[in-house]
């Protein structure tokens, strides 16, 4: 089939759909976790019960994780409404109100895609969308990832069709001039890598897409693959054509079953219509893509380690040179890029490099994708122009901190990144500015911390992760990170000395120098940045045995304020798993510190009107055992 025919078919399918009322439900993993599949079931039941016909279509993720399950109802000649936090119970209301009737149920809506005088927010004007610029996420959540025609009707594969009419050199030139940098973390110029691979001698070459997203707290690659897998496939085919490869692989974590299923489906459909496989779109170019499932190792995200895993070996990085572009998979020149890097390719080729170059900062072009998690109002995913300040991301996009708490820090780039404090909020984010601040773009996972989070404990958390994930090849990484962790353990348990801070610093620098791959070289970043920006907190732990955020268990005790304890209430006693709370009915409750396991359950269950349970640090500040059972009860409530 020639491309125009495919496109016509896609357009008519789309027009047919848009001609009738239809329902889109976000069913990426995040939507499913929030109950999207039950919502679909409810819609189907409700529609068939009333003998109504309206297609219910599964789409991907729009990036508003806090609003899941998310439903969009599109009615021809009427409002397109986005509904948030929909439960099966609310489905009847929606079907009755808007599918059957003309009431768009705006009280359940997040907003509408048209301006409306009834006052529902206009989606493009929501603070989040005003600051966002979606290039690679523009289709996510709006198209059916399991229907390739939906992708094509929305401009998909036009870039491929265009690319096949260009010469490989022209494409590489275009990518080079676009200034696209690899989105896997290190930010190497993609065009340079492509050129190197094209020029490397060898008949057999490979394209590998790195979808081994291992950073705990980053999930953008999963979202793209679940919401718009064709975009990545299109980028890979163009890359294959440009470097002269005929085989590509997507290396994806086995922990992402839905992404794997949707890629597999997308590959099959692309082959069926002649966009993938032999003689692509009649051009004579052949390219196949296979899926390799990864078995979960953070270090596999490193390019040479990933190739080792694909060859069936332990996923250990090796010395470079030779670069993968010279000797990669099975010794052949290999182009390895991240999911997002490939996803940008159709945009750049389709719209021309100029559009891409016009976005971003001098040395970081285009957009940046971040996942937002932690103590913010609106967790989710966002795509903003490079150079957007952290302040905009925190307050305008993520809605500021939850529970009126104060912003303390943001950890960017997961275990390889760093922890940035409040005074860097006006930092324009790009590859280079983050590097200077001691962090890195890394995966692009952002975790926001408020005043109730401890900087030392967070550094310890990341170190604990990297020690477990170190492959063990380099001594400095294997033993050094373990040593760092043990010092951090000492600090969080009040056993450290002030000199240990120097040791932390020196050892961190040595680990950076003495490790082969990115994992080891960046593992000390969380320690170094917290030392740099939150040194006071380290000193409080060591000198005063005090955890200012009241997080570190060994430096904190639970205490029941006698003046606030209700006496008649026994919530804490009933739930304490170690029977550490004393006090009968009508008596003030007291925690036996020796028995207390510091699980925090008493604090959780103490009714809000009393809020009698508090945390105290340092433990030496604990009031000496006050009023006890001996004191007669002075009446309850």
């Amino acid at each position, binding site marked *: 089939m020639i491309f125009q025919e495919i496109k016509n078919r896609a357009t008519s399918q789309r027009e047919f759909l848009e001609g009738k009322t239809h329902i889109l439900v976000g069913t990426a*993993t*995040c939507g499913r*976790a*929030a109950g999207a599949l039950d919502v679909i079931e409810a819609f189907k039941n409700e529609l068939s019960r009333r003998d109504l016909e309206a297609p219910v279509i599964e789409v991907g993720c729009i990036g508003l*994780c*806090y609003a*899941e399950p998310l439903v969009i109802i599109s009615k021809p000649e009427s409002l397109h409404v986005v509904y948030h936090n929909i439960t099966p119970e609310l489905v009847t209301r929606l079907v009755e109100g808007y599918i059957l009737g003309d009431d768009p149920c705006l009280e359940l809506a997040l907003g509408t895609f048209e301006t409306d005088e009834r006052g529902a927010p206009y989606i493009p004007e929501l603070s989040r969308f005003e600051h966002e610029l979606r290039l690679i996420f523009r289709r996510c959540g709006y198209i059916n990832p399991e229907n390739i025609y939906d992708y094509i009707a929305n401009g998909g594969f036009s870039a491929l069709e265009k690319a096949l009419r260009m010469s490989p050199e022209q494409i590489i030139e275009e990518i080079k001039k676009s200034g696209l940098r690899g989105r896997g973390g290190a930010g190497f110029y993609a065009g340079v890598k492509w050129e190197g691979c094209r020029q490397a001698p060898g008949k057999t070459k490979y394209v590998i897409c790195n979808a081994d997203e*291992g*950073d*705990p*707290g*980053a*999930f953008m690659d*999963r979202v793209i693959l679940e919401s718009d897998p064709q975009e990545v496939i299109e980028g890979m085919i163009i890359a294959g054509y440009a470097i002269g490869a005929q085989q590509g692989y997507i290396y994806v974590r*086995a*922990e992402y079953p839905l992404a794997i299923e949707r890629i597999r489906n997308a590959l099959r459909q692309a082959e069926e219509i002649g966009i993938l496989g032999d003689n692509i779109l009649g051009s004579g170019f052949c390219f196949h893509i296979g899926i*390799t*499932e*990864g*078995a*979960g*190792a*953070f270090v596999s995200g490193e390019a040479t380690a990933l190739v080792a*895993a*694909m*060859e*069936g*070996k*332990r*996923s250990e990085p090796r010395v470079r040179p030779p670069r993968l572009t010279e000797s990669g998979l*099975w010794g052949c020149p290999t182009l390895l890029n991240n999911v997002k890097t490939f996803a940008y390719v159709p945009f750049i080729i389709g719209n021309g490099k100029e559009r891409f170059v016009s976005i971003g900062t001098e040395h970081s072009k285009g957009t940046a994708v971040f*996942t937002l*998690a*932690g*103590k913010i109002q609106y*967790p*989710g995913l966002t795509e903003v122009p490079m150079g957007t300040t952290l302040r905009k991301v925190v307050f305008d996009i993520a809605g500021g901190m939850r529970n009126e708490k104060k912003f303390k820090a943001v*950890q960017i780039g*997961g275990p390889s990144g760093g922890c940035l404090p409040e005074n860097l909020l006006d930092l324009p984010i790009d590859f280079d500015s983050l590097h200077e601040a001691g962090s890195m773009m890394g995966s692009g*996972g952002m*975790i926001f*911390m408020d005043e109730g*989070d401890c900087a030392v404990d*967070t550094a310890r*958390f*990341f170190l604990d*992760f990297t020690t477990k994930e170190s*492959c063990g090849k380099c001594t400095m990484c294997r033993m050094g990170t373990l040593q760092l962790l043990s010092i951090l353990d000492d600090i969080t348990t009040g056993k450290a000395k002030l000199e240990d801070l120097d040791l932390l610093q020196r050892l961190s620098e040595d680990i950076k120098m003495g490790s082969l791959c990115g994992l080891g070289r960046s593992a000390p970043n969380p320690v170094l940045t917290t030392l740099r920006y939150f040194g006071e907190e380290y000193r409080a732990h060591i000198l005063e045995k005090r955890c200012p955020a009241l997080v570190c268990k060994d430096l904190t005790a639970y205490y029941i304020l006698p003046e606030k304890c209700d006496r008649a209430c026994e919530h804490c006693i009933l*739930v304490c*798993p170690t029977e550490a709370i004393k006090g009968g009915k009508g008596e003030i409750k007291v925690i036996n510190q020796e028995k207390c*396991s510091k*699980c*925090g*359950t008493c604090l*959780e*269950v103490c009714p809000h009107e009393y809020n009698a349970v508090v945390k105290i640090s340092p433990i030496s500040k604990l009031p000496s055992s006050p009023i006890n059972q001996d004191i007669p009860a002075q009446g309850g409530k």
Partner: protein
Amino acid sequence: MTEKKEQLSHILERHRGERNGLIPVLLEIQKEFGYLPKEAMLKVAECLGMKPVEVWGVATFFNHFRLTPLGKNHVKVCMGTACHLAGGRLVLEALQRELNLKVGETSSDGEFSLERVACIGCCMLAPVAVIKDKIYPKMSPFKVEESLIPYHQKEPAPPEKDC
């Protein structure tokens, strides 16, 4: 038992001699058996022309592979960054206490097993625990006991299955 053995030889037959097929083979075996039995790994080595230690090396390298069978009710606690900040460790400790298991262990009656995982990608629901594939959002030590109740009811023991 014979059925499982047949399954194993089917899997191995498909990949005979492909050294680079090691990880896919192990993934398939784990899907079939729920873990990697020692006998199966020895067979894999023989079939792919590798030393057993090479297979063992790979099987122990990746987090996804398990060398012991899972409990009937497998409990996973997310220890991703967002869950950690939201108190995931307290949830894990509460589960350890309630189930009387350490991380990575399976109870002697085969009912429960406990595992910590790096991130299941539901950061907005933190802290999260997964019991028998059902996601329990916004967990707390207090909710642990209650969420386990449906799984504590013992059913009549199923006919013994092994590999």
